[in-house]
């Protein structure tokens, strides 16, 4: 009886481990291939580890294309992503306070609008948004990738509203008795308490903006302005080059920020997914 139980446990863990290996294999392959020479990547594709470790893919790939190196692409991406994330986190918490703590006419209506726009895919509005930003003269700049995020993001508003509603209302009331208005209650009482929700939102925003491809594809037209996703796509175009080693190396590097965030903030990320019940 003990043996059978023991056997089942071993089989269970063996299965889970093999599933993990199977699932992660593409990423492992990608990682180890970045240390193979461009020719060896495909001729030795079936062996995971390189027979000869090649490190030159990283400096070679970093040189980029058209005289623009990946230093530019990475710093462009950080610039856009940080400004968009900052905007999304700050504006969403502000809006969320209005929805969660103030009673006023139309709040239910606007909340419903927000939940609806949560379901609206970007591709539906991409043409008219492009035309709108074109009329502002914003094409080729980072503004279309940053400014819309300063008006509150439905997903993060929703996340913050859930969080604020979980806070005891007595806090607000005692502050109100002490003479605080809504703005001060928000700034000094609510904001410090919803830091975990802000961190969760910030993490999601950072990862999503970092990985975004469609919007940069539409709005950025000069390689010197490219963000990492766009640069990688151009780098990998079969017509332009066959530097597979460099391509794999830069692909690996482009995933590093997401991995670092995942390792450092795993708890926030997992809780964010669990509490909101969604991931887009």
């Amino acid at each position, binding site marked *: 009886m003990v043996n059978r139980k023991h056997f089942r446990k071993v089989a269970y863990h063996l299965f889970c481990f093999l599933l993990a290996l199977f699932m992660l294999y593409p990423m492992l392959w990608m990682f180890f291939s970045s240390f193979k020479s461009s020719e060896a990547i495909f001729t030795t594709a*079936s062996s995971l580890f390189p027979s000869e470790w090649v490190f030159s893919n990283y400096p070679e790939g970093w040189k980029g294309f058209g005289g623009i190196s990946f230093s530019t692409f990475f710093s462009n991406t950080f610039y856009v992503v940080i400004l968009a994330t900052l905007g999304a986190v700050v504006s969403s918490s502000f809006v969320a306070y209005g929805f969660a703590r103030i009673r006023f006419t139309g709040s*239910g209506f606007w909340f419903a609008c927000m939940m609806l726009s949560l*379901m609206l895919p970007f591709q539906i509005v991409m*043409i*008219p948004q492009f035309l*709108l930003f074109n009329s502002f003269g914003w094409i080729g700049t980072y503004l279309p990738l940053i400014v819309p995020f300063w008006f509150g993001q439905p997903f993060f508003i929703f996340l913050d509203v859930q969080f604020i509603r979980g806070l005891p209302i007595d806090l607000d009331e005692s502050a109100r008795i002490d003479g605080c208005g*809504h703005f001060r209650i928000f700034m000094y009482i609510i904001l410090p308490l919803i830091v975990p929700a802000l961190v969760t939102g910030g993490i999601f925003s950072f990862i999503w903006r970092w990985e975004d491809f469609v919007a940069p594809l539409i709005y950025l037209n000069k390689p010197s302005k490219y963000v990492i996703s766009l640069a990688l796509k151009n780098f990998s175009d079969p017509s332009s080059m066959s530097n597979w080693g460099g391509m794999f190396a830069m692909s690996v590097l482009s*995933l590093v920020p997401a991995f670092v965030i995942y390792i450092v903030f795993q708890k926030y990320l997992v809780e964010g997914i669990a509490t909101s*019940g969604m*991931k887009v």
Partner: protein
Amino acid sequence: MKKRGNVRKYTRRDQIAGHIFISPFILGFLIFTIVPILSSLYYSFTDYSILKAPKYIGLDNYIYMLTKDPQFYVSLKATLMYAMVSVPLKLMFALMVAMLLKTTSKLTVLYRALYYLPSLVGSTVAIAVVWRTMFISEGLLNSIINRIFGTNIDISWIGNPNTAIWTLILLTVWQYGSSMLIFLSGLKAVPTTLYEAADIDGASPVQQFFRITLPMLTPVLFFNLIMQLINGFMSFTQSYVVTQGEPMNLTMFSAVYIYKTSFSFRRMGYGSAMAWFMLIAVSLITSLLFMSSKYWVFHETDMRSKNGK
């Protein structure tokens, strides 16, 4: 909040403060969502190439789309097939693995973290590029098959009309980790008393799954099904980077076709018409799902999980 009679109770101060606090959202919603949606409705009735002013042409775009453009149907079919197959598969797989990892131990926490990784990076260009190299003729899949079986296969899974779409479906199902985490948190919310009662009544684990676990999870399942389907219908990067529409534009998803029509061929009017068609199609499917929900979504939990809203 719904009662009209309450309106008077709101103080003037709250009325003003409330609108100030949500004003960023109202402004953004009007400028970046409502105005674009309405203007794209207008553009969909025009011939518009950005260089010249839009010219009103009535229903011509819609007539062309439905009667004269084979690629529109090819793209629609590929998109539907992709979304309708990949989303249920992904959710099923997520639920199965969630059941497997239900118990909490150090190792199961590690497994969860590992299984989530593909969701973290799966929609990036980096992974899309690598995914492509796995299924080309000299790619990873063929070389592993050849090594194990000693064969000499060199078909391109991406170039083959029968398999190309499956490489994209696989890429999506591979990212089941986030849904798995959602199901795991849903499982935690199921009251243990239900299982205890079922145990006393002698229900088998299989019966418990279908009579307790699955019904209790339906609200979460429902919400995820809708969100993932909407995203599936509008998938872009997979088709644009992995298969690049190969072979013969058979895997060019609607979102990519709309993009190419509007931005490569500069036919903004026609692109808008297709975008509006997709909006209507997605809304229809979503409302059908909502209507069906009363037959299969468990409502008692529904009330509770909605957070009193």
